[in-house]
């Protein structure tokens, strides 16, 4: 019953979204307000219908209704309730339903919020957003029906992939999807601006906050994915340059470029075409990402499934690219900006260089990801383009970007004078050189590490200096105390200082990445019970091997005692999980996570009688700083997007307090 009802609801929702799009366009062109009103109602009805479909599928999952094939494939009777809920996005059909729901929710929010303010463009914004929603509903209605029935009804479900039955599954996909769907909003506004010819900077202002929040979610999703990978997958790393990982990284790069270059367009009304291209690229890369995940043309850990769905996504990608690029070409005459610069050396140039490097990295990742396919098409052989390639090519580019992050904010808009440069860069350069020298004295000898640290210290130096001088100037001018001046500074010019905090977060994460990869120590030793291995300042003793039954699997683990010097520090229990219907066991790593370094243990192989076990232990110094850096980025974005009214109240309160 749920099966037919659910499918029918999706079909209705598809019709509703198509109507909402068409009625909006007709209403706008014919000037008929009643059609526009009707189309807006359709948006709401669409949201209700898709929400209903979500509820139906969730109900079926929680009630373990295995007459629906999707439920049988993604949950078991014995799963915990939260994993039954998460089973909704466990594989292809349900993940599309989640996407469609978020898309329909966002379009309803946009319509509700902006209709009064931007009457001229809103119908087209609505049409684009509903069009995208209609696409996902179309896929579900005709090719990947989450409500497809199961014949015969199995007694119990197959369950989620065991790797996914963790709380992380409740967070990571949602963060990513919020980011992906979020980018459709600025894209829709950009398309509406192109269609209506209203090409002033309105569309930027409307969507600035959406873009930044979507960027925040995508950043959060990527960091969280890395963190999940690190704690769970059992190889000690967090990023493997897997095609689907790359597919989430590419829109992030273009979105970052977009966020920076719109600042130029806002101030100087330049780069209009470029910004439209950037947001088009961002959204297209989002669709490219879902295409890669669902088409199976590139092998990946994350790949969902193969079948006709891939072709449909490719068709949609082609449609999006041709339509948006075509529109940009059509309007390109009216998009010529009047750029004026006093000097080639200016913040505008720094931002442009930032764009070049970010797009360059994006291009590299894209090239590396599709190069095996290209090689097969042209040479007929299969090759791999994996981690060593991506690391080798992106490290120099990343360092250049890092340096630019320090230089950019300090160069003045329009032009930079020599005095300007000298005053702003001297102190951070000195700080950076001193820091590098100190590290050299402490024993750091690798050139690339010293270099990375120099750049990092430089950027931190510029940020700290900026905060310091501005706070001091404000305190001197208004007579406030230092802390008050600092808070007021943050809250008043939150965009600039929020941005600087984000940069700080990025630098912290880069320090974590650099140190943990350069100074990683790894030992893999086969041990008999009571034998020890030394790694760094730690001694790890293998006590014994144990096995036990768990509700869904058999767990085999090694009991390890970790000593530092002669004192017992902690116990680690790395193991392997054997699931009945999985071909190979899943690693269950154990580690001591610490802000200074992580001690990470993996059980590789073992003798069944427990007479020996091969343990791989690694020390990952400053790994936690990557995740801390992510947190600082989050903080910075919050500072940057906090709503104005609340801030004004806070500053008033600050002012009325005695200095």
């Amino acid at each position, binding site marked *: 019953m749920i099966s037919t009802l659910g499918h029918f609801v999706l079909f209705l929702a598809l019709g509703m979204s198509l109507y909402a799009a068409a009625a909006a366009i007709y209403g706008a062109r014919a000037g008929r307000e009643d059609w526009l009103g009707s189309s807006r109602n359709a948006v709401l009805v669409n949201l209700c219908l898709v929400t209903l479909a979500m509820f139906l599928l969730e109900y079926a999952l929680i009630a373990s209704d295995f007459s629906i094939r999707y439920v049988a494939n993604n949950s078991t009777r014995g799963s915990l309730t939260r994993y039954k809920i998460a089973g909704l996005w466990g594989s292809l059909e349900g993940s599309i339903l989640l996407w469609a729901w978020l898309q329909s929710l966002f379009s309803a929010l946009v319509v509700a919020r902006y209709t009064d303010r931007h009457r001229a463009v809103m119908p087209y914004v609505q049409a684009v957003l509903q069009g995208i929603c209609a696409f996902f509903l179309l896929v579900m209605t005709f090719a990947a029906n989450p409500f497809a029935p199961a014949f015969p009804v199995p007694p119990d479900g197959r369950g989620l992939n065991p790797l996914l039955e963790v709380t992380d599954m409740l967070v990571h996909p949602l963060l990513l999807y919020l980011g992906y769907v979020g980018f459709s909003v600025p894209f829709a506004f950009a398309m509406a601006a192109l269609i209506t010819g209203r090409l002033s900077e309105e569309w930027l202002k409307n969507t600035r906050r959406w873009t930044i929040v979507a960027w925040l979610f995508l950043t959060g999703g990527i960091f969280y994915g890395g963190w999940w990978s690190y704690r769970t997958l059992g*190889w000690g790393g967090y990023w*493997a340059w897997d*095609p689907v990982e790359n597919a989430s990284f590419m829109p992030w790069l273009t979105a970052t470029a977009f966020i920076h270059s719109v600042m130029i367009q806002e101030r100087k009304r*330049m780069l209009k075409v470029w910004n439209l291209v950037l947001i088009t690229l961002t959204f297209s890369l989002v669709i490219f990402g879902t295409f890669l995940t669902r088409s199976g043309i590139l092998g*990946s*850990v994350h790949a969902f499934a193969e079948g006709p769905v891939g072709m449909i996504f490719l068709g949609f990608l082609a449609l999006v690219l041709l339509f948006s690029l075509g529109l940009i070409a059509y309007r390109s005459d009216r998009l010529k900006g*009047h*750029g*004026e*610069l*006093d000097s*080639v*050396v200016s913040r*505008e140039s720094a931002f*442009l*260089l930032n*764009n*070049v*490097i970010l797009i*360059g990295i994006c*291009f*590299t990742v894209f*090239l590396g990801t599709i*190069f095996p396919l290209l*090689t097969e098409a042209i040479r007929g*052989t*299969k*090759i*791999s*383009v*994996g*981690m*060593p*390639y991506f690391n*080798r*090519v992106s*490290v*120099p580019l990343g*360092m250049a970007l890092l340096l*630019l992050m320090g*230089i950019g904010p300090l160069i*003045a808009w329009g032009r930079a*004078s*020599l*005095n*300007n440069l000298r005053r702003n860069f001297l102190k951070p350069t000195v700080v950076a050189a001193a820091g590098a020298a100190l590290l050299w004295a402490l024993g750091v000898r*690798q*050139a*690339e590490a010293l*270099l990375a640290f120099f750049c990092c210290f430089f950027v931190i130096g510029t940020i700290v200096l900026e905060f310091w001088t*501005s706070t001091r100037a*404000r305190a001197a*001018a*208004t007579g406030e105390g230092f802390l008050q001046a600092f808070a007021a*500074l943050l809250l*008043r010019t939150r965009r600039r200082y929020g941005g600087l905090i984000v940069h700080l977060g990025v630098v912290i994460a880069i320090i974590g990445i650099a140190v943990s990869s350069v100074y990683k120590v790894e*030992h893999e030793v086969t041990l008999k019970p009571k034998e020890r291995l030394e790694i760094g300042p730690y001694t790890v003793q293998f006590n014994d091997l144990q096995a036990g039954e768990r509700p869904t699997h058999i767990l085999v683990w090694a009991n390890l005692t970790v000593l530092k010097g002669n004192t017992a520090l902690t116990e680690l229990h790395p193991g392997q999980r054997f699931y009945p219907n999985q071909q190979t066991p899943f*690693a269950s790593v154990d580690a001591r996570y610490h802000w200074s370094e992580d001690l990470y243990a*993996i059980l590789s192989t073992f003798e069944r009688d427990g007479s020996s076990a091969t343990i*791989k232990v690694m020390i990952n110094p400053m790994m936690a700083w990557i995740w801390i850096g992510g947190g600082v980025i989050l903080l910075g974005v919050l500072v940057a997007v906090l709503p104005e009214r609340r801030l004004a109240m806070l500053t008033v309160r600050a002012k009325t307090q005695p200095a």
Partner: protein
Amino acid sequence: MIRRMGRWASARRATWWLTLGVAFVPWWGAAHVYGATNFDLEDRVREIASELRCVVCQNLSVADSPSDLAKEMRNLVRELVRQGKSREEISAYFVSRYGEYVLLSPPKRGFNLLVWGLPFLAIAVGGGAVYLVARRWTEQAPAHRPAIDPAYADRVQRELKDREQQ
């Protein structure tokens, strides 16, 4: 006027040095990363194993993979290193059995030079385009401007900046 142009010229020269520095320094660092050779056996094994694809995994190297076959391949690499084989010989050993696919990054020859070279070419082209665009914008600026005393201009900039922060 001439003094003002002199200031611009030195700013521009400073920028050139800065840009070259920004471009050169990462290159030099990256070259150092991959030029170093390791003489410790385990380090050497890990170095070579990290360039080989774990054939039963998705996108992991033989050095990183926790699977059994990867462990056996690591043992094989260790034996080959003990026999004194070079990195090229060990790569060739695996390529002759598994094909080019087993190398985790494409060897730098022939068609593969595209994937190694295009990124840097793209950056160079992009950088050049930025320079040309910036120069065009500079030329589009009105040519006739009263000469401003640079010290005064700096002071104005500073005060504007302070005001911006309030």
